[in-house]
């Protein structure tokens, strides 16, 4: 946890628990080592928590998919299949790690490592609790997405180093998807920055702490532009982490395993871990940007500690991811890119306009609240309808006819 | 931030600049030449940031702004350069720069 000048004593005990624990460990060490130990403790905690979360997620995913498809999912290993992740882990470790002879060994190894490194680095800036943030820098959001964009390199390395046409082509397609969705991803959270006029996440979360009319929390998602930005962010986050409708790169029905064909054993597991880490990092970002981070939904529930609220929101989002994976069919590469460039990018740009209008018309006074609302709604709905109509034009529904006419 | 570090940084940026220059001058593949140019641009940016730190009043962050604009322009330059490269490749089937000499006198 970052060095906090003073502990807010008036916070409830549970709220201050993690910091107290940390203090317990570090106050033995001499002064200069104090910050270093704090940093090390926060790193260890983050890695262990999210490592565990990865394991649970793999299980939860398979269980949810199963139940959605009216089947129980893994329940043999342990109580209700609880030990399944460990079983998978052991399987991955014991599997032989095959590396193609003509492959570029250095890059072949480096690809999963750099991917994992990049996705772990993104956890540094997400505020888990009131004072629980590993790195509180005032360009946190920019850092998050700068590091996030490094993942593409590793995908390319994976595709290239396996010296296999399929994997190279799959890597190119995966890159196309990643790059196409990186644009709407970044543009979609710019409205938050416009409103909060700061890049540091802790500041943004603290801005969302108030409650209007006692009931409605000041989360950005409840503002018209915020909701649109949240939706866009989630969709592009889905694509960015190769999940659900956009999981073309490592889909079974596609080019074998996409750019991961030549990977097996532990490197393959690393790729999956990196993917889940990316997913959790992005949803953590979504939570802190739009769902008010560690803020409680209503004033009466503030006694529950902030990091719990963060955990609840995070898990609900992850459940949403899995739910979407279970329900939506896969998109073709051209539909995917067209959807990004012709739908998401324009909508996010227009959302910038709506937020600008929202900010400028802020002090119109109560009398004008309704026309202000109406205008923003128009600015949102009209382009949505036009673009969606335009998106579908010229493409007939695809009909498959197996039997010869 | 004393004299010694300042000189060190300046030496660092000039070294980086010369490496970029040497690559552009020696490598035959156009991509590396372009990357060499990117390197030279970056060395210039380093200088900007270093000098901005030593500047007494920081009310106007001209250094940072300048670097921002240089990065933007370097990015667009790289994009156009590589596009040209691809177009050239379509035409002459090779990336080696010496072959693109139809215009010589």
């Amino acid at each position, binding site marked *: 946890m970052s060095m906090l000048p003073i502990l807010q004593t008036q916070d409830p005990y549970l709220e201050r628990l993690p910091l107290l624990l940390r203090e317990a460990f570090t106050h033995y060490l001499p002064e200069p080592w104090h910050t270093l130990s704090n940093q090390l403790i926060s790193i260890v905690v983050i890695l262990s928590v999210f490592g565990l979360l990865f394991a649970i997620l793999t299980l939860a995913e398979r269980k949810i998919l199963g139940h959605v498809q009216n089947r129980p999912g893994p329940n043999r290993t342990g109580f209700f299949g609880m030990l399944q992740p460990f079983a998978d882990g052991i399987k991955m470790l014991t599997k032989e790690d095959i590396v193609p002879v003509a492959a*570029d060994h250095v890059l072949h190894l480096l690809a999963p490592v750099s991917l994992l490194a990049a996705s772990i680095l993104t956890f540094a800036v997400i505020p888990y609790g009131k004072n629980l943030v590993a790195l509180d820098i005032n360009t946190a959001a920019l850092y998050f997405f700068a590091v996030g964009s490094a993942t593409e390199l590793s995908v390319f390395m994976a595709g290239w180093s396996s010296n296999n046409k399929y994997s190279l082509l799959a890597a190119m397609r995966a890159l196309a998807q990643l790059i196409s969705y990186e644009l709407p991803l970044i543009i979609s959270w710019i409205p938050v920055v416009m409103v909060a006029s700061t890049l540091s996440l802790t500041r943004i979360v603290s801005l969302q702490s108030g409650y209007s009319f006692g009931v409605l929390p000041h989360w950005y998602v409840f503002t018209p532009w915020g909701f649109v930005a949240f939706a866009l962010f989630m969709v592009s986050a889905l694509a960015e982490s190769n999940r659900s409708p956009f999981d073309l790169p490592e889909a079974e029905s596609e080019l074998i395993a996409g750019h991961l064909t030549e990977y097996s054993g532990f490197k393959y597991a690393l790729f999956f871990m990196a993917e889940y880490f990316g997913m959790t990092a992005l949803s953590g970002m979504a939570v802190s940007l739009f769902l008010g981070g560690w803020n409680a939904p209503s004033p009466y529930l503030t006694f529950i500690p902030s990091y719990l609220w963060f955990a609840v929101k995070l898990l609900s989002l992850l459940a949403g991811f899995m739910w979407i994976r279970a329900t939506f069919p896969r998109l073709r590469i051209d539909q995917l890119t067209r959807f990004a460039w012709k739908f998401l990018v324009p909508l996010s740009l227009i959302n910038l306009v709506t937020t600008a209008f929202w900010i400028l018309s802020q002090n119109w006074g109560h009398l004008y609240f309704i026309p202000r609302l109406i205008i923003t709604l128009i600015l949102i709905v009209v382009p949505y309808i036009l673009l969606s109509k335009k998106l579908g034009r010229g493409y007939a529904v695809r009909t498959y006819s197996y039997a010869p006419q | 931030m004393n004299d010694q570090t300042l000189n060190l940084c300046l030496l660092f940026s000039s070294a980086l600049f010369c490496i970029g220059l040497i690559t552009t001058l020696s490598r035959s593949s156009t991509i590396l030449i372009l990357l060499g140019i990117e390197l030279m641009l970056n060395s210039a940016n380093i200088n900007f*940031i270093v000098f901005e730190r030593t500047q007494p009043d920081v009310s106007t962050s001209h250094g*940072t702004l300048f670097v921002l604009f240089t990065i933007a322009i370097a990015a667009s330059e790289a994009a156009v350069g590589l596009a040209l490269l691809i177009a050239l490749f*379509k035409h002459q089937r090779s990336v080696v720069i010496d072959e693109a000499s139809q215009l010589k006198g």
Partner: protein
Amino acid sequence: MNATLLITIGVTLISSAVALSLRNLIHSVLLLVITWIGICAFYLIFNAEFIAFTQLLVYVGAISMVALFAVLLTRVAPSTNQRNKQSVTRFIYALITGLSLFSLMAFAVLHTDSPKEKVEALPATVYSIGKELTEEYAPALMITGSLLTLAILGSVLLAAHSPQSKENS
């Protein structure tokens, strides 16, 4: 502070030198990524965060990707890779000019007396950069924006020129 500075400088210099001397293009581009990261670290040392992460985003995320794609799209049979005599002489010439330039700059740097009052300037916060960009340098921002869009459109046009016209030409 000095140690980290020295390390970053060392890493960047070595990585760039090695990157630009490799024969295999992909390796050199990826090694160059390390140089960019080194430079980003250099900026962080001078706590210019915004610049560091922009640099990271632009160079590592975008430019190296474009370079890699360029390498992919212009792959040629590896026959002409051997180091012929002509490129060696060229390298020597390049080395000479580069070193003479470096010695000139080093001479200049070492012999100029740096400005007297070297107060540790406060880093420019994101807010001040944003304010300045949108107020004083708004036109410059607009121009760079349009420049970037134009550059992208241009490069797309250039690169996406349909190959079949080449066949029949």
